[in-house]
C-alpha cells in the first residue's frame, strides 16, 4: 500500500483556539478518503494544511513521502476543488481547465489535448467556449473538478463541493464523483459534514469531532461499530441510554436489556441501538429483547416512518420501520411491542 498523504501529530491553533488537535492519519493511493465531521470540527483546516494554505502549528504533513513544511501551495502536488468552486470568471470553461497547464508553461498543443481529455472525462465536451456564468451549478462543479484534475495531482482535495447543490443534483454529482474517481484513479480526500454522502462515496471515512479524529474505518465500520458516543451520534440517528451492566444485561431506568458484550459487573455503560434495527408490531415474538410500549410520536417520511415509543416510565426509544402498507402505520396512543436481537445493540464508551 502506497501512502499518498500522511499527517503526523498535526495540530493547528488560531490564537488560543485549537482547530486541529494532534491529528495523525494516512491516506492511501487511489482511495476515496472522507473527512467527516460537523461544521467547525477542523476538517477544512486539515484539508487546507494538506494544500499548503495553512501551516501546522505542530506536526508534519507528508505528501508522497516528502515533508511539506515550508512548501508553498503552488509547489505542492495537490489540487483543490473549493467549497465555492473559485472558478475564474474572466476565463472560458476551457481556459479555466487549462490554467494549471498554462502556468506550468506546457506546449500549446499538449495543453489543448489534456484540457479536452479532462473536459471529456467530466462530460463537458462542447462547452469549451462558454463563460462560467453561462453554466448551471452542476456544470460549474464539473469545470472545477476538471480544472483540479488536469495537472494530475498526487491527491485531489475536495472541500464540500456539493454543498450548494439541491438534493437531486447532489445525488447525481455523487455518482459522477465516484465514476470520475474510478476513471482517473487519483486519490481523493473529501471533506463533508453529510454522513450519507461520506458513507456512500468513500473507501474509508475519518470521523472528526472538535479537532480530533475519533475514528477511521470503512463506512461499514464507522456506522456499525462507532468507537464512542460522539461518533455514534454523528453517524446518523441512534438511541443512546446510560445504564449499568449486570450479568449479561444492562439496566436502564428499571428495564433490563440483554446484551452480548461482556464487561465487568457494575460498570457504567452507554447502550446504543439504531432505530432501523428495532422491530415494531402489534405482536412480536422472536427477538431476544421484547418490550411493550405506547406510540408517543409519529414522523411520516414516505418510504418509512419514525416512531417514538415510550417504554415504561422514562424511556422513549426511536424506531424506524418501512411503510409496507398504509394500514400498517401506527398512530399516537397505539399499544405496540418493540424488540431486537442482542447482537444488534452496542455498548460503547463515552467521550464526555
Amino acid at each position, binding site marked *: 500500500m502506497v501512502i499518498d498523504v500522511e499527517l503526523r501529530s498535526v495540530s493547528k491553533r488560531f490564537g488560543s483556539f485549537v482547530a486541529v488537535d494532534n491529528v495523525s492519519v494516512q491516506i492511501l493511493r487511489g482511495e476515496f478518503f472522507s473527512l467527516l465531521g460537523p461544521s467547525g470540527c477542523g476538517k477544512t483546516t486539515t484539508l487546507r494544511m494538506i*494544500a499548503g*494554505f495553512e501551516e501546522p502549528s505542530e506536526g508534519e504533513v507528508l505528501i508522497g513521502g516528502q515533508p511539506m513544511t515550508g512548501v*508553498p*501551495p*503552488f*509547489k505542492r502536488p*495537490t*489540487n*483543490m476543488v*473549493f467549497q*465555492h468552486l*473559485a*472558478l*475564474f*470568471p*474572466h476565463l472560458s470553461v476551457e481556459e479555466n481547465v487549462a*490554467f*494549471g497547464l*498554462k*502556468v*506550468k508553461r506546457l506546449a500549446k498543443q499538449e495543453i489543448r489535448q489534456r484540457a479536452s481529455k479532462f473536459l471529456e472525462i467530466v462530460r463537458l465536451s462542447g462547452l469549451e467556449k462558454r463563460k462560467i456564468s453561462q453554466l448551471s451549478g452542476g456544470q460549474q462543479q464539473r469545470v472545477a473538478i476538471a*480544472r*483540479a484534475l488536469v*495537472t494530475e495531482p498526487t491527491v485531489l482535495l475536495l472541500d464540500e463541493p456539493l454543498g450548494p447543490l439541491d438534493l437531486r443534483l447532489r445525488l447525481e454529482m455523487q455518482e459522477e464523483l465516484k465514476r470520475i474517481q474510478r476513471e482517473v484513479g487519483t486519490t481523493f480526500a473529501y471533506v463533508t459534514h453529510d454522513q450519507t454522502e461520506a458513507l456512500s462515496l468513500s473507501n474509508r471515512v475519518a470521523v472528526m469531532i472538535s479537532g480530533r479524529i475519533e475514528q477511521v474505518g470503512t463506512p461499514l465500520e464507522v456506522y456499525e461499530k462507532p468507537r464512542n458516543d460522539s461518533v455514534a451520534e454523528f453517524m446518523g440517528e441512534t438511541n443512546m441510554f446510560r445504564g449499568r451492566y449486570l450479568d449479561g444485561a444492562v439496566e436502564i431506568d428499571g428495564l433490563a436489556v440483554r446484551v452480548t458484550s461482556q464487561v465487568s459487573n457494575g460498570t457504567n455503560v452507554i447502550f446504543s441501538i439504531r432505530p432501523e434495527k428495532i422491530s415494531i408490531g402489534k405482536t412480536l415474538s422472536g427477538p431476544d429483547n421484547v418490550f411493550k410500549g405506547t406510540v408517543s410520536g409519529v414522523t411520516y417520511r414516505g418510504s418509512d416512518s419514525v416512531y417514538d415509543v415510550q417504554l415504561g416510565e422514562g424511556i422513549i426509544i426511536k424506531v424506524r420501520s418501512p411503510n409496507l402498507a398504509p394500514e400498517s402505520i401506527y398512530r399516537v396512543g397505539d399499544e405496540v411491542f418493540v424488540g431486537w436481537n442482542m447482537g444488534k445493540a452496542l455498548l460503547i464508551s463515552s467521550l464526555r
Partner: protein
Amino acid sequence: MREKFLQFFRRKVELRIFSGLSFSLVWFLLFLIVPIAVIFLYSFWRQEYISIIPQFTIDNYAQFLANPIHIPLFLRSLGISAAVTMGSIGLAYPAAYFLAFRVRKYKIPLLLALMAPFWTSYLLIVYAWKIILGYDGILNSLLLNLRLVEQPVDLLLYSPFAVIITLIHIWSPWLVLPLYASLEKMDKSLLEAAMDLGATPTQAFLRVTLPLTWPALIVAVLFVFVPTVGEFVTPALVGGPQGYMYGNLIENYFHLGFNWPLGSSLAFVMLALVMVMTLLLLRTVGPDKVMESL
C-alpha cells in the same frame, strides 16, 4: 384634464424616470452640451479684430495643421499626460492592493489618508512643489547638504518633470478609490485557486488579479488621462518653456492672442481625439464591465 394627465404620467415609467432625471439633464445640457456646441460653432467662424463673424470657414482647422507648433505641443501634452497616468497608477495600484489584501484593521482611515491630497487645494499642491523643487528649494538644500551636488540643480523646477510630478500628486488619489473598490470586491479565493493550480504569486497576479481589475484600471486611466491632456494651470506655474502644454496654447489663443475661433478649433481637435481614445479604451473592456467597476 389634470386628473387624466396625472394618470398618463403615472403609467408611463419612462416618462417618470425622465422627469426624475430632468434636473440633471437640463444641467448637463446648459453647462456641458451648449458650451461645447458653442465652441464647435466658433471653430468654424472667423474673427476680425475684436468681432467674431459668423461666417462658415475651415480656415481655423487649416491653421491648426499649418502652424508647426500645434501638433508637437499636442503630442507633448499626450506624452506628459501618459506619464502622469502611468505614474499615478504606479503609486495608486500598489497602495490600493496593499489596502485591499494586506491591511485588516483601520482600512477606512487609511483609505481616507491616501485620499487626503484630493481635499487639498489644487494650487496649494502646485505651490508646495514649487517650494520643494525650486532653486533654493527643499530638495536642492538636501542634495547640497548631503554633498551630492556642488551647486543647486536648476533642472528640477520649470521642466516637464516638475509638471509630471505635481500632476501625479494631484491625480493619484483619484485612482485609489476605484482601484481599491475593484480589488476589495475580488474574490480572494480565486488567488488561492490560482496558487493551488501551480501559479506563483506573480503569475497569479498577472493571470487573475490584473485581468479582473482591468475594467477599473481603464476607468482609472480615463479619470487621470482625460483631464490632464488639457491641463494648463500646473504647466503655467511649474512647467517653464519645456513644460508648456497644449492647454496653455489654447488658453493663450483665448486670452492673449484673442483669437477665439482658432482657440476653439484647437480645443475641438483635442476634445475629438480624446473622445475617440476614450471610446477605444472603453471598447476593450465593454460598457457592462465598466459600469460594474464603478
